[in-house]
């Protein structure tokens, strides 16, 4: 029997079918856990719904109006902005500094790199428990123990309205530093040595090498880290959840924490979804702004 030669169309379909088969798991997961919730959340942001009441009246944009008038949501917005700018503002220079230090040929360099990366692959929940102990407000906390050694009275850290957010920022930098360093290192290693040699022949010193070769050529990497760090920072949730519960007196209440509180503690799903969409709008605006202001300063080559 002569096998029938499939037509081109069928053949292409079969080829694509294989591709679709490989894509299917990802499509299903993204569809069920990302796309559907995104669409559904917008739908319920227009309702007043507590998840279990069969009656869920349509309220239009009332939830959005409420969010804009809600003192607590505004507090969360302020706290999150403070967190985002301070944590990203400190993390990027620090990461760059360590990346430059680690971008050398030294014995045992891979050990140092690993050491910086470990916090990033540690479960944040587990790490937060450890930090909770370090920040213990009486003299048993390691930080207060060290302060006591140099004669400084014990601090209340996570329980102090002024110290709580900086304490959270410190943990978040500790945790994300490794990721930023690795991305910076990749950026640094993709800069051709030729530029450095040429600059050295022209008599450039170390600072000038950094300022006129490394910094501009690293700008795509810096830009990338800035964008993803900002987006990540506006979504901060796990650390306040584990370390402070949004307290003291709402000083570490962030937007996502507020969404969680409204949605899963007070079961106001409609209002929580409206806050989530408001957050999306904020992140979208900030990212657009960054593109506008910074994109033309990014050099992809000299």
């Amino acid at each position, binding site marked *: 029997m002569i096998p029938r030669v499939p037509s081109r169309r069928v053949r292409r379909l079969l080829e694509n079918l294989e591709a679709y088969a490989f894509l299917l798991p990802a499509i299903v997961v993204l569809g069920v856990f990302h796309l559907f919730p995104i669409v559904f959340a917008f739908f319920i942001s227009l309702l007043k719904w*507590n998840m*279990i*009441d069969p009656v869920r009246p349509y309220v239009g944009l009332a939830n959005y109006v409420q969010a804009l008038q809600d003192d607590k949501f505004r507090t969360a917005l302020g706290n999150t902005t403070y967190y985002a700018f301070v944590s990203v503002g400190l993390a990027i220079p620090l990461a760059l500094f360590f990346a430059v230090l680690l971008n050398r040929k030294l014995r045992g360099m891979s050990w140092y790199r690993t050491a910086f990366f470990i916090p990033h692959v540690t479960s944040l929940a587990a790490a937060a428990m450890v930090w909770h102990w370090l920040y213990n407000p009486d003299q048993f906390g390691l930080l207060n123990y060290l302060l006591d050694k140099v004669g400084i009275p014990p601090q209340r850290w996570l329980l102090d*309205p002024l110290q709580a957010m900086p304490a959270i920022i410190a943990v978040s930098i500790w945790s994300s530093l490794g990721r930023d360093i690795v991305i910076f290192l990749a950026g640094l290693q993709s800069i051709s040595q030729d530029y450095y040699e040429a600059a050295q022949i022209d008599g450039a010193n170390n600072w000038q090498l950094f300022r006129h070769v490394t910094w501009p050529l690293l700008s795509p990497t810096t830009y990338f880290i800035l964008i993803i760090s900002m987006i990540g920072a506006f979504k901060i949730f796990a650390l306040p959840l584990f370390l402070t519960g949004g307290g*003291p*007196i*709402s000083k570490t209440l962030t937007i996502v924490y507020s969404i969680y509180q409204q949605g899963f*503690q007070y*079961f106001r799903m409609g209002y929580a979804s409206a806050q989530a969409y408001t957050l999306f709008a904020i992140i979208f605006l900030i990212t657009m702004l960054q593109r506008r202001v910074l994109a033309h300063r990014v050099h992809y080559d000299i």
Partner: protein
Amino acid sequence: MQVGRRGFLRIAAAVLLLTASLILPAGAGGPVTITFWHGMSGVLNPAIDELTNDFNKLNPGIVVNAQYQGTYGTLNQKLVAAVAAGSPPTITQLFPNWADQLIQAKAIVPMENFIKGPDGLSAEELSDIFPILRQESTFNGVMWTMPFNKSLYILFYNEDLFKQNNLKPPATWDDLLNVSKALTKEEGGRTTRYGFVVRPTTDYFLLMLITNGGDFLKPGGKEVAFNSPAGVEGLQFLIDLVQKHKVAYVLNAFADADFAAGKVAMYLVTNPGLAFARAAVAGRFEIGIAPIPYKKSRATLLSGTDVAIMAKAVPEQQVAAWKFIKFVTGTTATTRWFMKTFYMPVRRSARDSTLARVYLQQNPEHRAGLDSLAVARTAPNIAEWQEIRDIIQEAVEEAVLGKKTAKQALDDAAVKANKLLSQRK
């Protein structure tokens, strides 16, 4: 291993049958299986397993699976998610303000249906349950839930310390201040022991409010009343203990560890806290129990959860669930539950039973808790109360941290709480 086509089919059939038997409901004649979701952790968990096992042994036709779901907060989240997904348990533990929400959503069935049903309770059996507990389970005149693990606030004190200093447990606020002064100890400019501890929580404040003659809501229930002069004075009293008299400190955690370490001589806690305090103290000193010190009126705050039967359960499961609830809240079980966990017995007959009498003779400190039941008050059992609790909590923190005066903090909280109440259907 070589498996022929037939062998394969046989295995497939076996697997299919096994799976089917696991997921399909048991046929007629098989035992009725019901699930009981609870939040009883630590030392309380074995107590609940024991109750369940006893019931299962006595009732061969019913299998109760008691399942620990995490803290009360987690239990609430899982419960709402399970109701939304259409797969709730048969019975759940729940706070009165959760019940309000579940009733509105038609997710639970009234306990009254079963109390008045064929296998129900007689009038005496029903009125045997303490009135205050029945009141907290009643919504719009219908009893929707059954009181199960109910507790109330009492004062724990270090009895050895009191004896050494010839002190009596404080009955009033003034006593509390004076005793705290006597027991606060300084060494080298550092306070090594405080008389009292202030946890900046809603309940610490509410206790001061009600022992000062204050109320939660204004008559009619449309507005809150916690920012009354009684409330302001109560909050100020807590702040003064810390800042003016320096006989107490602020702690954002459970106090049993500090109490056991001798850092504090007294604290306020609910009865089951005794199991945790005993574990922490480990016999180093005797733990005394006294009613909450008062200023204007003796009072304490009722706490703890009830049980409810879910509407989604099939009738046979609901009947079995009622049987279980009737058992665990019956005189014998609730007496044993009290002696194991120190939760309140829910019935007068249990409190007055020979078993309890003998137990109280050997452990007279429990009398304080049982006696407090007569003056116990219940917070409003409305869904909004859960968020109002958080609002009060923040006001207490603001005042304790000195960000606002007691009056300002409570007035601001009242505005927010009233706004919530005004939206209530």
